[in-house]
């Protein structure tokens, strides 16, 4: 018969939280912010094909920080959930809040019951219309879900980046200014991030059903000026 050592639940939670935080801090950060016409998601990502930002549905985007394989599986599950909900009911019934809740439940379950907690932080962004408001839902590794009023920072060192970004972003701004602020906040005072190392996606109404679009390096450079 094997012996199990008693571990206090406080200790267990603390250990798991530390483990997850360490994993997330290894990755680069990203910022999601509301600008005057939509939502912009800016990630520092040297890879042009392993995306951190992507489209979930007509008015919903996803961003993930931390372990790529873990948040990418969540992204795929989100697309499947959204497409099958829209197929079963109607396109307008696909709600970002419902998706964020499912993510929160799954991350919460993995944190307490899984072999190890997921080393990810994710964001569900929803572009508003007459049915729903524009929203940024941030879901942390242990399943905490927060409704961020104007912007959210995901990944390691998020507090510092948040403070830097908040300084230049006192009110809702046009896309080029918000993008510049986000890039500067991600880079910090000592360095600059070239446009090729930025991954930028936006949700904006341009007369199409699908509002997500990925900005090319040229478009990003032009906006950064």
């Amino acid at each position, binding site marked *: 018969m094997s012996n199990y050592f008693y571990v206090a639940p406080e200790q267990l939670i603390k250990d798991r939280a530390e483990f997850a935080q360490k994993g997330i801090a290894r990755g680069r950060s990203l910022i999601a912010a509301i600008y005057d016409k939509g939502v912009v998601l800016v990630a520092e990502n040297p890879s042009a094909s392993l995306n951190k930002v992507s*489209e979930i549905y007509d008015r919903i985007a996803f961003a993930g920080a931390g372990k790529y394989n873990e948040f990418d599986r969540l992204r795929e599950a989100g*697309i*499947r959930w959204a497409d099958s909900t829209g*197929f*079963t009911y109607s396109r307008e019934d696909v709600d970002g809040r419902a998706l964020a809740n499912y*993510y929160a439940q799954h991350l919460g379950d993995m944190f307490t019951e899984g072999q190890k907690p997921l080393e990810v932080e994710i964001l569900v962004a929803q572009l508003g219309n007459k049915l729903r408001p524009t929203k940024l839902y941030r879901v942390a590794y242990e399943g905490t879900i927060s409704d961020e009023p104007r912007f959210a920072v995901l990944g390691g060192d998020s507090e510092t980046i948040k403070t830097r970004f908040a300084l230049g972003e006192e009110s809702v701004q046009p896309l080029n200014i918000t993008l510049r602020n986000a890039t500067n906040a991600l880079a910090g005072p000592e360095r600059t991030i070239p446009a090729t190392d930025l991954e930028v996606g936006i949700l904006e109404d341009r007369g199409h059903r699908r509002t997500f679009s990925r900005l090319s390096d040229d478009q990003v450079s032009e906006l950064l000026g």
Partner: protein
Amino acid sequence: MGLPLFSAHGDPGPSFWHFADSAGLTSAPNATPSDFTHATTVIAVRYQGGVVMVGDRQATGNYIASRDVRKIEPADHFTALAISGSAARAIELLKITQLSFEHYEKMTGSTLSLEGKANYLSPIIQRNNLISPLIVVPLLAGWDESNLIGRIFEYDGAGGCYERFDFATIGSGSPFAEGTLRLGFRSDLDREAALELGALALYEAGDNDPSTGGPDFVRNIFPMMVTLNEQGFQELSSDEVGERFRVINERRTESGGVAGGALR
């Protein structure tokens, strides 16, 4: 539905149909039909630089059920899907197809090739038609972005997919449309000539097949005409289509109701 997460070996991949099937979202067709009809005419004609499609608007059972049905719809920006057969099954096929192409794009970050899209439909049609008497036969046409040509794919009842390099027709009005197309088709048709030929072929089908709706000058409902080229899926306005059919109609009146031995 909860969050559809899968382990690596059970993952259905970027195919929406395979996922929907495993999740029980697609219906299992095994009912006896009360009526079967493929009362339709849809035509696809290839031209230099794209494909023209023309489709009638009438839904027919034992009587005319609707006069303004859309039988050609964009499957995505560069692809159109036309449907014939059981309306319920055909509309479901259309919905699954549109969703599947978009789903693949979102999951993988890249679009399917035109041939990939055409092949994707084969097992879906096959399963529907071999299990159910509610047959559906679609027609797929699109602009091939990698080879920069318009292409047409037709299907048989068992899901077999065949590329056509000239033209293709589906529905009960096919024999009449096909006759016109065979006389009028040339490999060097331009957009205008292809539109003219397609409209004429549909006019013939509407004239001879009781289940194909020709131009309806009383209600101002006209067949659908679309083009697929490097600009993607584009639908001609009802006014433009109406004008084309009015010209054919007037010519036909002048010649006393027959084509008069000439293709016009």
